[in-house]
């Protein structure tokens, strides 16, 4: 094979590879814009926390409803309110589109030291009266977060001036109260509005 034929063969091989790649892509429509669905939904671990009214929150609390769960804290001025705002807006858009059931928005505080029930109540209800705030004993909180692969770590600071690093993911719990899907990275209203009805209907 001369150099020219060799070049033709290379070009043909590349064209074939591109064609196969494009065909595979077209045959596999991206059903979800952002959700990563767990191969098998995972039951929540045993834990006992409280909500914004002081009532017990445990694995049972998540049954018979769909929940979008975010881990954050009320003294976080940037990403936490931004994420809750995105979830609240997505929920409103889903409601307007007739989505049933609607997901409950849940904020689990990774800063129970500062986030008592009353503080949490004002904060979560600002984004919607049906929202659930979860706080409580830090050891119980660790049971929940470690069972879900959620990371959080209080950072050093002075007095009540400190930040808490935390996973940015939003988790979807299904109506069995099981961890069903995960939204990671940059959250977007459109992604939740698109994916949530598909996730609920796919059950």
């Amino acid at each position, binding site marked *: 094979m001369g150099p020219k034929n060799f070049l033709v063969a290379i070009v043909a091989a590349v064209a074939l590879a591109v064609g196969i790649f494009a065909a595979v892509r077209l045959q596999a429509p991206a059903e979800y814009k952002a959700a990563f669905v767990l191969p098998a939904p995972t039951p929540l671990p045993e834990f006992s926390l409280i909500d914004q009214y002081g009532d017990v929150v445990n694995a049972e609390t998540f049954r018979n409803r769909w929940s979008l769960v975010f881990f954050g804290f*009320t*003294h*976080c*001025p*940037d*990403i936490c*309110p*931004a994420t809750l*705002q995105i979830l*609240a*807006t997505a929920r409103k858009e889903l409601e307007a589109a007739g989505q049933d059931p609607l997901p409950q928005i849940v904020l689990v505080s990774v800063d129970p030291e500062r986030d008592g029930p*009353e*503080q949490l109540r*004002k*904060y979560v209800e*600002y*984004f*919607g009266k049906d929202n659930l705030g979860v706080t409580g004993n830090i050891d119980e909180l660790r049971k929940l977060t470690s069972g879900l692969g959620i*990371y959080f770590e209080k950072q050093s600071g002075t007095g009540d*001036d400190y*930040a808490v*690093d*935390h*996973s*940015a*993911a939003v988790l979807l719990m299904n109506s069995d109260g099981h961890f069903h899907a995960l939204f*990671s*990275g*940059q959250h977007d209203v459109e992604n939740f509005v698109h994916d949530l009805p598909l996730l609920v209907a796919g059950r």
Partner: protein
Amino acid sequence: MRRFLIYAVLLLTACGAESKPPLVASEVVITAPMPGMTMSAAYMSLTNNSDHTISVSRVASPQFKSVALHETQTDNGVARMRALPRLDIPAGETVTLQRGGKHLMLRKPSGDAGNVSLEFFDGDMLLLTVDAAYKSRDN
């Protein structure tokens, strides 16, 4: 005079200066503190019209006990909020303070919660004053 004062006031209506000020803020959003909270955040675009890097070393506000330059960094799915020692705006460029990125954290408001002034300094040199009203989150 080696140390000259660069002073620019951003007003929504009176922004028609003939020569561009060295540092200009636009698209300013200051979130209102939420019920029960003592902190909020400020977002904006800062444009450097000069031919040298402008460095913001601190920000102050008469309406807040403290203003901090912060950055939310999300790596491997973990969001971290870190203090920025300074904010450099290269010559001719715009640096955007936005949600999930660089931002100003405003803590412990004092006085009435109406308009907010933000004063940007490099050391003791005032670079820019931004006046803006709180913007409520769209609910």
